[in-house]
């Protein structure tokens, strides 16, 4: 899986504009929407990420310094996303602690990014709510009628209407 491509797909689906900027060492995916902007950096290894994230952040900010200076409050909404497919669990936690560094940009730093789902989970702070449960009508009556196929329909109709319990019991006795 190409992390860059998957990230761009997700971001574009979420109404971000995305493009790639080739920095000195590696490509960077830039993204921006009405409120946020940022850069996605992908590293081959956890060590590479831990060793280069600060520099990469700095390079990206420096590259866009002029634009950011004119962005007003939006300049506070810059995200630096650092991702690596490396599954070194020990370093994974160290990488995630990068997120607690609030200087310059909001960071998203994750290791073990190997599936599209991993990319989506990492980019969740940038995306709208993904889960949209469709809780339609429960069709209780229809389901109950289907379930009660051995009960005479008249009795089920009486049960589902305003008929009194005693009358329903009578109908059940008369029709069972």
């Amino acid at each position, binding site marked *: 899986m190409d992390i860059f491509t998957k990230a761009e797909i997700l971001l574009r689906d979420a109404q971000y504009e995305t493009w790639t900027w080739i920095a000195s060492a590696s490509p960077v995916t830039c993204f921006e929407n009405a409120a946020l*902007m940022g850069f996605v950096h992908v590293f081959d290894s956890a060590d590479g990420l831990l060793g280069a994230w600060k520099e990469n952040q700095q390079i990206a900010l420096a590259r866009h310094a002029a634009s950011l200076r004119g962005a007003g409050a*939006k300049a506070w909404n810059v995200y630096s996303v650092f991702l690596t497919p490396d599954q070194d669990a020990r370093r994974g936690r160290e990488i995630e602690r990068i997120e607690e560094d609030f200087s310059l940009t909001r960071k998203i730093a994750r290791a073990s990014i190997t599936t599209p789902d991993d990319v989506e989970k990492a980019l969740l*702070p940038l995306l709208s709510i993904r889960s949209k449960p469709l809780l339609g009508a429960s069709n209780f009556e229809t389901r109950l009628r289907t379930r009660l196929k051995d009960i005479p329909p008249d009795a089920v109709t009486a049960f589902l209407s305003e008929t009194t319990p005693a009358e329903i019991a009578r109908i059940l006795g008369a029709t069972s």
Partner: protein
Amino acid sequence: MRLDFIEVCGFRGFRDLVRINFGRGFTVITGRNGVGKSTLCDAVEFAITGSIDKYAVEKAAKESLSDYLWWRGEGVPNAHYVTASFVADSGNPFTITRTRERGSDRSPEEIHAALCRGPAPDDALRQLTRTSIIRDEWIAALSLDLTETERFDLVRSALGALEGSEAGSRAREVVTAAEAAHAKDEAAYEAARSRLADRLTQQSETQAALSRTGDVSGALQVIAAAAPDAPTELTARLAAGRSALANGRARLGRMGEALQLGREVVAAQAVYNAPEAVANREGASAAHEAAQREHEAAQQAVSEAEQRLVREEEMDAMAASLSLLVEHGERLGLHDDHCPLCAAHRTSDEFAAGLAAARRRITSLASGVQAARDALASAKENARQPSLTLQTATAAVQAHADELRRLRDQEAAHVDFYNQWGLEHRFIQDPDGLEHAISPERDRLIDLERALLVLEASQAVSRMSSIESNISALRAEIEKLAQAVSQSQNAVTAAREIERSVRRVSAEIIDERLAQISPLLNELYQRLRPHANWRTIDYSIRGDVRRFLSLKVGDGLNPQFVFSSGQRRAAGLAFLLSVHLARAWTPLRSLLLDDPVQHIDDFRALHLVEVLAALRLDGRQIICAVEDPALADLLCRRLVSTATEGGRRLDIDLGPLGATSVVTDQEINPMPVGVLRGVATA
């Protein structure tokens, strides 16, 4: 639909009129503690429900929320009311105004119609405010700290799956009604069976009576003879006959007893008067007389011996006195040839001879006592046997006297029995005669009984047809009742099947819906990331009648017990937000949060802001009250403001007289786009 504005006057801490216009996209409200940020949430809730849930159970010193709904500070407000205005996506407004004096200008039904749709839960408006307004004090209380049953109920209500509960209680009522009808049918069936058993017994008895039919006219004559004064009506005559029969049996019984007594008396008399007994009695009498005579003779001899002894003892006493006198005289001796005792002239010889003669005489006087004593002892010994013989003879005579007395008593009791029961006296001395009299009486009673049976049997003919028709009707009735029992049993079975199915379908719907919102809960949990290790949260449902919703992290751990306070609040927020988002029964897309970041660190507060931003991206209206201005800044930057769904920021504070007012009301404009590309446009 979203909140458009809220207007309060004289409500809680707001003395003067304050109107808050909400941004269609978001509104961030800041202010210090106690300036009334929460009151704005209260006002929305009060406008919708007429109450404020967070105070619902709080009561102190007999005061309750209603005493504090309206302004109680200095000064007099111009009015006391709350207005909440909503605007539908179509642009149509819906406004609710509640005044202190007149209450709401909208009925609950109108409010329900505007703010709810589809299958809304019970107490829908309260559920609406509970799931739309997330308060600081509810984040833990309404999420992780809820009991599992309460949590289940909250989620079920939020999901709007209300049909099951209503149908469930209805199904239980139907089961109860069916069971009651069945019990009634069974009781009627059993009663009819019992009546049939009675009738069948009656039928058998009547049948037996029928077999005894005979000469009715002869029977009537017999009864007339037995009860001559009886009425002519058949039933009365039968009753009189039965009464006569009972009396006759009693009399016959007594005659039998009298016969027994008479026979016993005769037997006793025969024994008493038997020749041997007579000879015995005469012999005893003669022996008694002879013994009496012997006894008297012996007693006479004893008496005489006693008299002799008395005499001898008297003489002995005299001899003793004389002896003393002789000894005294001897000691004195002659005195001038004269006896000192009798002064007679005596010589010494004569005096000595006199003394010797006196002594002989004394000796002879004294010697008779012993003989008399011996004679008395002998007489007494001789009298002992006659006395014993007399006692024996007397006892024998007394025994015969007792025997006679007993016989007389028996005879008297016999006569008394005749007197007591009015029996004929001629039979007192004639048991055989009585026995002869008993025999025809017994025959008469047998005839009477037979006559009665014949007469009863004649009645049984007509009774039999009535009983048979009654039995036939009862059998038909039992058939119908058995069918009714079978039907009502079927009704109970069917009612129980309905109840089971209702419960199952309701449970299935809720389970399905929970399964549907589970990814949402997990997504929000992952976004808020309360815990570094446990990245997902799961739920489980158990119970059939009472249902429980458990939240689990990691390997089945309860977050309530393994999370810190801040982590619990973050997990709780995820839960409440998922409940809020899962509601399909309201068009209201406003989420109000009252200071949701207390006890949450900056990192997790940032996650919350990002979650709210994500909700904004979905077009939800976010209204959030916070204390920290920096957090308010962050929210204003991070929540998307667009040309059609703008944002607002309000700062509220207390005025000099303690009334709350809006200090700043700032519109948050959309941010520039195309910044990074260097083509920024505002």
